[in-house]
């Protein structure tokens, strides 16, 4: 195992962390705003992958799929919002967990009806099909694209949250929703916007992941647990927490799989249990939590 091996693993870990980040950021801000737990977030990721595959087949372009699938997932999210999510806002975590758990089953079967039960692949665009030389190793260009995309979105969200008016409104509402509402911020509408953005990012993560992992009906459930671990470890409602949590879980799962085959998952669970017991607010919680 020479240096290039470790560089490869490092890049794999960063790439997986970026996918986790795209999924967890929506989940954590939604929770931070209204303490809403959306277990169906993983199902939206799965829908993103399947819709992306169909969109790529219909248009013949990966890039079109990369735009269309997240938008389609956002539409689905908006429909969900007006039919279910909005009603559940004050219903307590138990009911939210149960309804969104039910949604997992519904989406699972809808995808099986629509696309069948076989794994579907999506090929990376020709411009990203080869390998690139980075840090002295050959690495698939498409995976570098995932890393770059994740970093761009991370920076964009950071600037939005830290520097824009809507970012300030979101931060204020996460910190103290009642006070923000008193000051004239429409927390409900803000929640809707954040929910839609979370759906877009989940859908985007789905399309982006499809060429690497291929789409299966189990992908939504299997990504849900690592995403929840990221959210809890990082601290609910915080961007920095989602970034830190994604990197920690991404690196634990990737390096754990290499160094301690089979027990990588246990490492993540031990970390989750330790955080829940010793520091339940998470590593980098949003203020007010």
């Amino acid at each position, binding site marked *: 195992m020479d240096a290039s091996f470790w560089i490869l693993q490092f890049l794999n870990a960063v790439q997986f962390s970026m996918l986790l980040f795209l999924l967890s950021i929506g989940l954590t801000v939604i929770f931070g705003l209204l303490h809403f*737990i959306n277990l169906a977030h993983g199902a939206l990721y799965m829908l993103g992958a399947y819709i992306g595959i169909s969109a790529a087949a219909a248009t013949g372009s990966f890039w079109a799929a990369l735009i269309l699938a997240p938008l389609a997932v956002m539409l689905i999210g908006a429909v969900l919002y007006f039919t*279910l999510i909005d*009603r559940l806002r004050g*219903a*307590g*975590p*138990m*009911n939210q*967990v*149960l*309804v969104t*758990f*039910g*949604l*997992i*089953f*519904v989406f*699972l*079967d*809808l995808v*099986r*009806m629509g696309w069948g039960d076989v794994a579907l692949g999506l090929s990376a665009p020709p411009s990203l099909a080869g390998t690139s030389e980075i840090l002295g190793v050959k690495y698939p260009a498409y995976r570098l694209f995932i890393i770059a995309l994740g970093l761009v979105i991370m920076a964009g969200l950071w600037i939005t949250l830290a520097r824009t008016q809507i970012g300030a409104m979101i931060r204020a509402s996460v910190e103290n929703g009642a006070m923000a509402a008193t000051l004239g911020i429409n927390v409900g509408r803000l929640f809707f916007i954040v929910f839609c953005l979370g759906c877009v990012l989940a859908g985007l993560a789905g399309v982006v992941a499809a060429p690497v992992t291929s789409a299966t009906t189990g992908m939504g*459930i299997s990504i849900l*647990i690592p995403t*929840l*671990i990221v959210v*809890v470890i990082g601290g609910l409602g915080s961007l920095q927490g989602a970034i830190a949590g994604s990197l920690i879980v991404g690196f634990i799962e990737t390096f754990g799989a290499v160094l301690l085959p*089979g*027990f990588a*998952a*246990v490492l993540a*669970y*031990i970390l*989750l*249990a330790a955080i*829940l*017991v010793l520091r*339940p607010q998470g590593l980098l919680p949003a203020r007010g939590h």
Partner: protein
Amino acid sequence: MFRQTPARSLVLIVTLAGLAAYASAGGFFAREIVIEIAILAILAISLDVVAGFGGMVSLAHGAMMGLSAYTYAIFSVKLGWPPLPSALLGVAASGIFGTLIGWITGRTTGIFFIMATLAFGQMAYTVFFKWRWLGGDDGLGGLSRFDLGGLGIKMGNSLTFALFALVLVLAVYVAAAWVLRTAFGRTLTGIHVNEDRMRALGVNTVMHRAQALGFSALLAGVAGVLAAQHVQYISPELLVWTVSGEVLIVVILGGLGTLIGPLLGAVIFVLLKHEISGYTNHWHIVIGLLLIATVLAGGRGIYGQVEHWFSRRPPPPAGTAEAHDA
């Protein structure tokens, strides 16, 4: 607070008698269904004790059941012990596991408790998934049933085993109902309704919760031994978190905090599964929509809803008002 109303006793007796009649009259397939119902019902009653009366929604109940099944296999298959002491050790192992989880997570509530139980359950799952000595992901076969030949009872007979499973359901229900009616059970409900007040009254709420989860895990352990003896083969799939999620659905459909509801939920869940599978293999969507409809209709579940219609008094606290902030 739990009340064993005459209506609940009646439903219990009629349901168990109905299942016994179904097993007696039906063929091998009917008996398999009755055993499947019995295992699920025991696990659901076990979950209802902590989720319905203590507000502790656990996603580790599948792991508790599986741990008991594996412990049974370790002692009976690997070490050659007789089935009865092996079974008791299996149930005890599950009880200790539950108490430990409850003790470690004693201060977490709500979604954090759910996540913590998920973590511990999945840890146990991964351990058995990787443990080659116990077959790893291939599972382990060659388990035996209780030998009651001395009493003239042949457990190898599917009807006998189905009736034995129903007796266990009755025993678990009676044990749960009895514990919930003691001071221990009332204190558990008290902690759920107002933890600060119970602490002010001098109750060690963390220890009390841990003991409640331990008791619930003992009952889940009974389901584990029954499951292991039923198919005489075990695999890590018993422990995976979706099993716990399924049990939670059964409890919610039947009626959280009613104790008898989970039994009805198990009957309906298993029958629906086999009925719907006859027409289509998309039965998940049916269960998903049923779950969503149940929660949107007030979350009382089937038995809770019926009880709600018939009761002139305000709805009993355990099943309704508390369920929302559980």
